[in-house]
């Protein structure tokens, strides 16, 4: 079942269906050098990477690619993975489920990928889980955040092939509640996307904050459908409820639009405490520039100023030198996903799926975002991502985090078995 590389025969078969053109499409990225492969691992390590590369969110795909290409260049320059080169092919995921599945199947069955990575949408990640089980190759999710992926597909259904290197919705819902606990706000409201991600995060926030701080009230919810360009009705609904705090998991272009319109409506003067779980995304910070108010709580899956250690500082400097850009969080997760595979393959001494899955389980790795540990039970990477207050810093043309708060992942990540007492924060003991 697990075919390694692309044999001539597969090639001919693929050609039958896809015509003569298939031959040229096999790799955008060729191995950049020659290495003598050791006995155990043959040929290059091939990673198929899919992300959104078309439409309004195409910028995310570019950010993914920057991180991944940089990792590939560095890894290959330093001798590859266990002596063989790393090869990556990218595909547009279009955010549609059938396309994600087709990509995964193409990567594994036609291109001969050893591992997959990427995926932005939660729906796609959930749809891919059974497909990966069938294809028998690991998928490292670098952006999709739904906790159902790791709690249900990996833990409950036992799909071993799925791993996630980015923080899940726990960061957006639970960690936010820990930060909100320390704020004087008593009444909270939300403007969030009218789909599962929005509902899930808000429910987690309410649930956890309700337990942490009894007496807190949740006074208004306004759900904005995907593609909303006019947030004024939503802003007015929230202002009418007179909350002390606003929580919003709007993201990307829609978050930018919402902040601009909230500025016009004077929302930031009326509501003192604002929490944006994905506000620390580079596209948002750069897109808003000075229009992002100071003193807003933001977070993400990684922020380039944290951790303030040499490894991260060097990485950000190298990234800027290579791409003339600050790394977005998907750049870091994409970059680190390649290194996770490198470490696992080298530890296992094989690129065979089961060996690599075994090596990844419980694996500790250093990365620009700090130390990550892949929790054995649900394959979720645990690492610290800060929540921070926006501030103006003359060194940067956009708002950055000033004051930072770190909640340890062990305190706010839901715990296996995910159902029953003491599986959701706050934890006793």
């Amino acid at each position, binding site marked *: 079942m697990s075919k390694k590389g692309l044999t001539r025969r597969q090639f001919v078969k693929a050609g039958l*269906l*896809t015509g003569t*053109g298939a031959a040229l499409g096999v790799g955008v990225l060729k191995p950049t050098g020659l290495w003598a492969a050791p006995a155990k691992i043959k040929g290059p390590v091939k990673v198929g990477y899919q992300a959104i590369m078309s439409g309004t969110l195409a910028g995310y795909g570019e950010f993914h690619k920057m991180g991944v290409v940089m990792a590939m260049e560095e890894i290959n320059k330093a001798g590859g993975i266990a002596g063989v080169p790393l090869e990556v092919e990218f*595909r*547009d995921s279009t955010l549609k489920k059938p396309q994600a599945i087709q990509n995964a*199947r193409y990567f594994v069955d*036609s291109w001969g990928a050893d591992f997959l990575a990427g995926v932005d949408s939660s*729906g796609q990640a959930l749809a891919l889980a059974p*497909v990966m089980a069938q294809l028998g190759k690991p998928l490292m999710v670098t952006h999709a955040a739904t906790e159902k992926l790791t709690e249900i597909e990996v833990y409950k259904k036992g799909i071993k092939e799925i791993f996630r290197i980015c923080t899940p919705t726990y960061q957006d819902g639970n960690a936010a509640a820990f930060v909100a606990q320390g704020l004087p706000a008593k009444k909270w409201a939300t403007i969030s996307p009218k789909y599962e991600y929005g*509902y899930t995060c808000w429910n987690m926030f309410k649930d956890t904050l309700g337990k942490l701080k009894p007496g807190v009230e949740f006074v208004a919810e306004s759900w904005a459908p995907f593609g909303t360009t006019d947030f004024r009705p939503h802003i007015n609904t929230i202002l009418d409820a007179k909350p002390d705090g606003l929580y919003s998991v709007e993201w990307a272009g829609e978050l930018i639009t919402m902040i601009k319109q909230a500025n016009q409506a004077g929302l930031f003067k009326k509501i003192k405490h604002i929490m944006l779980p994905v506000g620390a995304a580079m596209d948002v910070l750069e897109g808003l520039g000075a229009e992002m108010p100071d003193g807003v709580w933001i977070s993400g899956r990684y922020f380039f100023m944290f951790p303030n250690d040499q490894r991260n500082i060097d990485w950000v400097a190298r990234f800027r030198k290579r791409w003339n850009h600050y790394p977005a969080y998907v750049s870091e997760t994409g970059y680190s996903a390649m290194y996770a595979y490198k470490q696992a393959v080298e530890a296992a001494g094989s690129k065979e799926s089961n060996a690599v899955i075994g090596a990844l389980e419980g694996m500790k790795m250093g990365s620009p975002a700090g130390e990550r540990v892949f929790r054995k039970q649900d394959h979720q990477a645990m690492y610290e991502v800060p929540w921070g207050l926006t501030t103006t810093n003359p060194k940067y043309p956009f708002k950055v985090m000033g004051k930072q708060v770190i909640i340890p992942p062990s305190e706010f990540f839901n715990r296996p078995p995910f159902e029953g007492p003491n599986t959701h924060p706050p934890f006793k003991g």
Partner: protein
Amino acid sequence: MNSKGTHAIYLAIILGLAVLGLVADRFVLYMGMRVMLLAIFAMGYNLLLGRTGLLSFGHGALYATGAYGMALVNLHLTPDPLLGILAGVALATACSLIVGFFCVRHTEIYFAMLTLAFGMMIFSLIWNLRELTGGDDGLVGISRGSVLGLPIAKDGQFYFLVLFFFALTLWLIHRLRGSAFGLILAGIRENNQRTSFAGIPVKSYRLAAFVISGVFAGLAGSLGAMLESNTDPFSAHWSHSAEPILVSLIGGLQTFSGPLVGSVIFVVLREIIQRFTQNWMLWFGVILLAIIMGMRGGVMGGLEKRLKRGPAPAGKGEGS
């Protein structure tokens, strides 16, 4: 081409696909199934568009009702695939009866807009009934089980179930087109007043065509849910309804084989372009535009015309 020759060609196609199912690797099988599912969807759809002359933007929603009907039965009642498919098709049939009942009172742009509105209503329902449909995550974890004791969990096995329904669709649509019913639909397309003066209840025939195309949409949807082991709310979106339209246009609206050929081109061309460039949408669009504008009557329409240029245009009303 005489009808014997045509039959031989289709028999050869089915046999060829069966052989492919035995020898091809998993990706080719998967792409083959994608082509067959789109072909089932489009051939049913073209009974309405090409044959009856009604342009619907709501068939994506009927495809989705098939998928969700199948998935709900599969997840909550029984993993039996045939019962699941039956449920999916039944739900799609019921929906097309209701939607069709209101829509066939109108034609042309009014019909198109009404189907669009109903389709988007179904899309909103699927999006918002989160407890039932899983919202934008869709329903996940659909299993394939076994048919009459034969396992279909593996792609190489499931392929033959898809092939069976594909062959069944080919045969049914072929019979329908050649029947008096099919000829009346063509009559309605050409001149609905004249047809109604001939004493034919035009609306009922339109409704029948709508429901039949809905049945095939539901069949494609329920098989699609099994293939991908999940349901996708966006399959109910109007943009998904554009797929069978494009496919029929590429292949040839007025031909029997048009949607089939169109499906092959649509799925395979897209896959090839994606291997060359990440800007695939642009190139895909340009090539589709060239086919649609360059070949009036689609690939098969153009081919038929060329073949018939020599001898007398015997079946011209049929062919072009």
